């Protein structure tokens, strides 16, 4: 597939407390042409996304909720000390600025009630670990679905198409 210079690279935020799994997911995502940021906890993820976690000891206070960097998808481990992936999912879905970002949960344990809980809370996918390349190929539709929705909004507004790589879409960030 030829690289198109104007094609925006999608940015994935990966959250996992395991160094090894972070290395793996990073490699999986980069191989699939995503830009990747990895963090080792839910609270660091929220910090990166521009939300303060009131329970975090080292949270940095942001004066506004402006997202510095656009994140097109969040992929998070379920089982983490402190804030679990499920807690992170909830916080993202409760946030008006972040709720449109697709969230994928990863878990080493195949527990149907866990999976259902996450899907009910708004997770877009649930991957069983170890995550494989074939799983990563399932991410694009979720990103594009949100990206298209944003482009449609902008087309209706101004009559011209705004590329999804700009940060000022979906209104209320």
């Amino acid at each position, binding site marked *: 597939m030829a690289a198109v210079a104007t094609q925006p690279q999608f940015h994935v935020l990966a959250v996992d407390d*395991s*160094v*090894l*799994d972070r*290395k*793996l997911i990073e*490699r*999986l995502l*980069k*191989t699939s042409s995503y830009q990747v940021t990895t963090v080792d906890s839910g609270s660091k993820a929220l910090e990166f996304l521009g939300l303060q976690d009131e329970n975090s000891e080292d949270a940095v206070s942001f004066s506004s909720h402006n997202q510095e960097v656009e994140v097109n998808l969040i992929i998070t481990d379920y*089982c983490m000390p402190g804030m679990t992936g499920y807690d992170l999912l909830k916080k993202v879905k409760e946030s008006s600025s972040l709720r449109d970002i697709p969230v994928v949960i990863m878990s*080493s344990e195949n527990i149907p009630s866990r999976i259902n809980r996450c899907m009910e809370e708004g997770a877009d996918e649930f991957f069983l*670990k*170890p995550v*494989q*390349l074939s799983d990563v190929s399932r991410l694009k539709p979720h990103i594009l679905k949100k990206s298209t929705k944003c482009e449609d909004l902008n087309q209706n507004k101004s009559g011209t198409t705004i590329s999804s790589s700009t940060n000022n879409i979906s209104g209320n960030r």
Partner: protein
Amino acid sequence: MASTQLKAQLNDLLNSMFAMDFLDEQFKQLQMLEDGSCPGFISEVITIFCDDAERILSLITELLSKPVVDFEKVDAYVHQLKGSSSSVGAKRVALVCIKFRNVCQESDKEGCIATLHEIRREFDELNKKFRIMLQLEQQIQALDSKR
């Protein structure tokens, strides 16, 4: 020694590791992820795994040496080790971890100590093979880059 001979040795080693279930399909996934843009990927991942496993096994040994064992903590560490061994395709180690979690959940100290020994044996054997694998890879790379 010519790099072709070393490559054959490496191949034999990997084939036998797969045949004896030291490694499973997940390791093949890792091999797929290593390419020109990321040549040291497997070496990095294996090193992280081995260092981490050593750390966890030491911590578990310490926890089990106490008069009153915190089985929850032990279980949490075993869960970590199970996760990372599955991630690299270390099948035999992962299987013993499952066994370990069962005895842990029954708060069976003797069972835990016995299973710990088993994991130790499995991991030590795997570690030895990994070291040989990484050594061979390094030698091959060194020879190939001289061409």
